[in-house]
């Protein structure tokens, strides 16, 4: 995004379907932004959202607005010469513990041995917490046999007893079976959290699990707006929320979600699977909220060597912590040529 004085701001949309995001930005969002004042970012958010509401507010619309909104915050920071976290309300912390996150595609993409190796690699890189994403999902609900236990055993054995370990069921259970599984995972593998044990479409089931287990439940990666998050909080009552900056409407909406979450006493553990501008934006958000959870999601950079070259300076990951960038805007410069090259590859 380029301002009339030539200053540029960069953002990142949700990464699952780039052509779809690009089409939304080009055909639905651009007309609301061109010629407008970047300091009107909240008003522009409303214009983009309500101007395209019929596309369905809870999906690709919020995901694509996220990228535009993040670019506006980068631009505002650069225009004023201050880091985005200052404009977002100031800095509570300059770094955040990161947990290493990886998926196994319900056991079809990654073997048990590979999962153990990945977990060991996280520990070598300095991570002090690891999350295993089972990616069961609703269409394979309550699998029998359930590969989760073999993977959990292999990962716990690979990382040893001192590393925090938790599991994302990716909505794979009914409440009744979920309760049974969570209790067993806690007892046998000492998990510290359970993520989305049940469907994100039935918050009552989330509440049912939470009432029954003494393992904290985290949910909220697919609730992209303040209204969806509020519904999750009031009906599902999860212990932690995990909205994603590049999915949930960008920094403007994430700040609103944080305010609502804080009013209900819910800390946020950011969902974050892209080591690029999305992580930088999430770090500015995390720096600026009082109700930040004990960590945020991050991934194995060694799996994405090409993405590391897109930004300068690279994000600092030290001793298991991600550092909040300090420069104006998001605090990183984008290498446009490298992005074009990566896009063609």
């Amino acid at each position, binding site marked *: 995004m380029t301002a009339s004085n030539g200053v540029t701001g960069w953002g990142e949309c949700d990464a699952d379907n780039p052509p779809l995001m690009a089409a939304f930005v080009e055909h639905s969002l651009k007309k609301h932004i061109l010629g407008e004042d970047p300091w009107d970012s909240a008003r*522009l958010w409303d214009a983009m959202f309500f101007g395209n509401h019929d596309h369905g507010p809870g999906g690709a619309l919020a995901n694509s607005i996220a990228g535009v909104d993040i670019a506006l915050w980068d631009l505002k920071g650069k225009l004023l010469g201050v880091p985005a976290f200052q*404009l977002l309300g100031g*800095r509570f912390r300059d770094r955040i513990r990161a947990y290493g996150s990886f998926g196994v595609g319900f056991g079809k993409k990654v073997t048990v041995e590979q999962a153990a190796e990945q977990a060991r690699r996280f520990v070598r890189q300095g991570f002090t917490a690891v999350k295993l994403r089972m990616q069961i999902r609703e269409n394979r609900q309550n699998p029998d046999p359930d590969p989760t236990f073999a993977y959990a055993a292999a990962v716990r054995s690979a990382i040893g007893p001192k590393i925090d370990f938790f599991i994302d069921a990716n909505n794979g259970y009914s409440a009744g079976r979920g309760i049974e599984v969570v209790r067993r995972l806690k007892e046998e593998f000492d998990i510290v959290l359970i993520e989305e044990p049940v469907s994100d479409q039935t918050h009552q089931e989330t509440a049912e699990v939470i009432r029954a287990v003494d393992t904290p439940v985290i949910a909220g990666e697919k609730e992209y707006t303040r209204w969806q998050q509020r519904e999750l909080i009031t009906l599902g009552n999860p212990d932690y929320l995990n909205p994603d900056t590049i999915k949930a409407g960008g920094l403007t909406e994430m700040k609103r979600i944080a305010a609502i979450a804080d009013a209900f006493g819910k800390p946020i553990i950011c969902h974050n699977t892209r080591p690029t501008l999305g992580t930088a934006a999430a770090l500015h958000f995390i720096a600026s909220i009082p109700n930040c959870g004990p960590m945020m999601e991050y991934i194995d950079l060694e799996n994405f060597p090409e993405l590391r070259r897109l930004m300068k300076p690279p994000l600092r990951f030290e001793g298991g912590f991600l550092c909040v960038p300090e420069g104006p805007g998001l605090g990183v410069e984008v290498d446009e040529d490298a992005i074009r090259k990566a896009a063609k590859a």
Partner: protein
Amino acid sequence: MRSSEGISGWSDIGGRRFAVTRQVLESDAARCITGASVWDAEPLWEKLHAASRDAGLNGLAALSAVDIALWDLRGKIAGLPVHKLLGGPARQRMAACATLACDGSHVEQAAKRASQMAAAGYRWLRLAVTARDLPLNTSADPAIRIAAAVRAAAGAGMQLIVNLGGAYLPTRAVEVGRRLHGEFGVRYIEDPVSLDHLRELAQVSEGIDALVCAGGAGCTRWAARDLIEHGKVDVIASAIALAGGITEANKIAALAQSLSKPLMPRAPHGPLAAAAALHVAASVLTAGPAVDWPAAALGGVYSGVPEMQDGFVRVSQAPGLGVTVNLDRLGKESGA
């Protein structure tokens, strides 16, 4: 509030126990703020909130004033009006609502002022029935009498808000609320039952057609949540100098909006607070009317105070709050 570069930020102070508020400002606030980054709105808010909680509402008044002054300062440093730092205006102007208080002893005077306000262009009027000491569950209750006189004087076009000062038991509040709505077209009933009586508030809200509103006597995001969840209010009233300032009002607005509760900005604490409330309300989709106008300029102490025109007030485009405190006048007015 002065920055190291010599730029100053200002606020009015809400509440009534100024000695307590002053103590919080001089001890806790001075300790938390001195040397801090002017941009740390939320960390400073949390720090001062934790430090001043035992001072109750008067601590919240101190916190609110510090927060508002810091936003004024930030706007001046950035060269931007506060509402631009909050994400820009959802609207440039907002319906202004005048406030009128009456305890039933001078109803004719209240009626006269109501007609003056209608003539001045106001289309919203908030009537505060200040009769808390009367036995209100008897026929001596002046609320209906006052409302009838004010409605007759202000004309049919005036939108009415009636504040009942928390004076009723819930069943009586329902009875009075129904009459005020049915006979005099009152839109909002504010504070029908005693503060903190959330069950009773819910009973009234469920019992009457007028929208019930509360929160103006002081409220944080957590109190606002309880007013909505347990008090079943329809509208959140937020007096910014008793609601944690701009930082907190902005959060209350996000919360209220996600639950479809409009924010009604109140500003009884002076022109700086009134301007601050207007900056927040201008940036929020579902807000209004702006209550407690006109904000007194106190014989030239303040300049740049938004003025009501044709029933509306416009948010200032000047850096910070857009209201200037004239120091020489301030000395004269306070007799210093």
